[in-house]
């Protein structure tokens, strides 16, 4: 295994007037390719801030992020945007599909930004939809799908461009337990069969149970890091 992402002494301090809040406190760890890792912790423990910094959506106060062998600290906004597009797949808590785009178009979007030819895009969409169990819904629009189906489309969108890592923030939070469990099974399958690297931010016990590594945050610092 080789490392996909490496965090070194990451800190994030928010200042509100005179008050300083250490949202992330001296966090260091490495995620290897093919891991199925969950970052757990109570609300306000710094999970989301950590994911934001890992993806370059938020800057750190100190420390560095090495993603796919490159430090993202000194990248310009546009370089960071391209880097994110090419190396990271996102799965959000509330699906965050583009409502005016069909399922096929939503999945195609990142590939379109990457300049992948239409024929290849269509082939990949067809294949990935079959893998996430949604063949035949290509032409439907997000509001015509159930929550579980929308999140599966979000997973398909995240992995279709073959990113180095999938960052998933509370992916099951808006789903009922059955849909959540099915979704996790599907992601686990993708992890096992295709070697897709997943990093979850969660406090859902189903994710924690399935994760092969569990990093627990407490007050912004790593409280435990257990590989099962």
């Amino acid at each position, binding site marked *: 295994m080789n490392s996909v992402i490496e965090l070194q002494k990451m800190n994030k301090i928010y200042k509100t007037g005179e008050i300083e809040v250490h949202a992330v406190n001296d966090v260091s760890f490495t995620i290897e390719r093919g891991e199925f890792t969950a970052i757990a912790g109570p609300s306000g423990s710094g999970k989301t801030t950590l994911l934001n910094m890992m993806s370059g*959506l938020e800057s750190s106060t100190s420390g560095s992020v090495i993603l796919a062998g490159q430090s993202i600290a000194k990248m310009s906004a546009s370089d960071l945007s391209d880097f*994110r597009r090419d190396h990271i797949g996102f799965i959000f808590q509330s699906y965050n599909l*583009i409502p005016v785009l069909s399922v096929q178009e939503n999945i195609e979007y990142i590939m379109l930004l990457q300049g992948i030819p239409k024929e290849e895009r269509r082939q990949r969409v067809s294949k990935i939809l079959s893998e996430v169990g949604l063949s035949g819904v290509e032409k439907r629009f997000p509001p015509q799908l159930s929550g579980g189906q929308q999140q599966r489309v979000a997973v398909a969108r995240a992995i279709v461009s073959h990113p180095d890592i999938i960052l998933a923030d509370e992916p099951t939070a808006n789903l009922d337990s059955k849909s959540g469990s099915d979704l996790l099974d599907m992601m686990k399958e993708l992890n096992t069969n295709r070697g897709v690297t997943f990093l979850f931010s969660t406090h859902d016990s189903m994710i924690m149970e399935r994760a092969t590594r569990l990093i627990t945050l407490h007050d912004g610092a790593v409280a435990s890091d257990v590989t099962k």
Partner: protein
Amino acid sequence: MLWKMAFRNIFRQKRRSLFTALSMIIGFVMLSVTMALSEGGYGNIIKMFTKDHTGHVQIHHKEYLERPGLYRSLVYTKKIEKIITENREIKHAVPRVFSGGLAFIDEKTTGARIVGIQPAQEAKATTILNKVEKGEYLSDHWNPDKKAEVLLSHGMASILKAKVGSELVLISQGADGSIANDLFTVTGIFAKDFDTMDRMNIYMHINKAQEFLVLNNKIHEIALFLDDYLDSTKVAKQLKKNLAGVESTLAVDTWMDVEQTFYRSMEADKSGSWIMNLIIILIVGIGVLNTVLMVILERTREYGILLALGSRPYMLIGMIVVETFILSIISSIIGALLSLLAIWPLKVYGITYPEPVSIGGITIESINGAYVPIAFWMPIVVVISTAVIVSLIPAFKAAHTDPVKAMRTF
């Protein structure tokens, strides 16, 4: 994909798009109707009074226009006629004689403007023949032994209480210094709308006018008629050049020079209509800005997602501007169709002023709109450019959305 998203976004919030489109459509129709009335209306007025009265280009004695007088005359020579005939733009050339006088019918008397015309040529060049409301038009054949006929303008006939067949006495000054006086028969009276320029005109055969005023073969004006009044300046320039070597005492002027006061008043009035245009731009601008800002507020999360997925800020700007652009095109098409309908009654029936309005000496009782190209292309340009420019402000705002704040989560 950008166009697809922009297009679908229009139909996503149908009611909001409808209100945005309505502000654009209302602005379009208002501007179009204003243009149709100002540009088209003035165009019609120009066509009407040049066709009825001044012609498009006039040839005079070089001092006549500045100080009109009986003695500032010219002779319509064969050379001048040849130069005019050779110019293909000129469709008709009519000679005229003018003088002042005093008119009497029974105990009624008033000052008059005597106009000598060549009846047949004048009828071909102008609409004079159709403007005779009562009686008959002048006979082209002039018999010096027969009592001369005159046509009265509507205003003159009202003052003198003249009827067809009334006997009219006219007194003036002859070019030889004598007192000119003669008895005439009123053969016809013009309709009121022919009084646009001068309601005190008395028309007679040009030969009779020359005899009455002792002008011999002299005239005061050659009025030239073109197919298009917009060619006036060009034709006047050509004639000036060609006549320069023939007769140095002649001046060639366009209708804009002849009716300077009207022309300047009209131009001033037209430039005043830009205030109206500015108001319309504001209506469209505020309407678009308001709705686009609302849209951006509602779609902040979406813009955050698009940026997080790797879209560049300029793509978001493009998407928002394209959305407004498409909506402005749709609105312009609907606006143009509605304008066609709105202008039609203005074209056919016009707007009648409660009281006749005088613009630079030209009396106008009503104004009619016209289907002029500017009434359509100008609103298209104004509506689309205003909408696009105004949408740039919120588009830039959206493009610089912080994805983390926008998505709130993650």
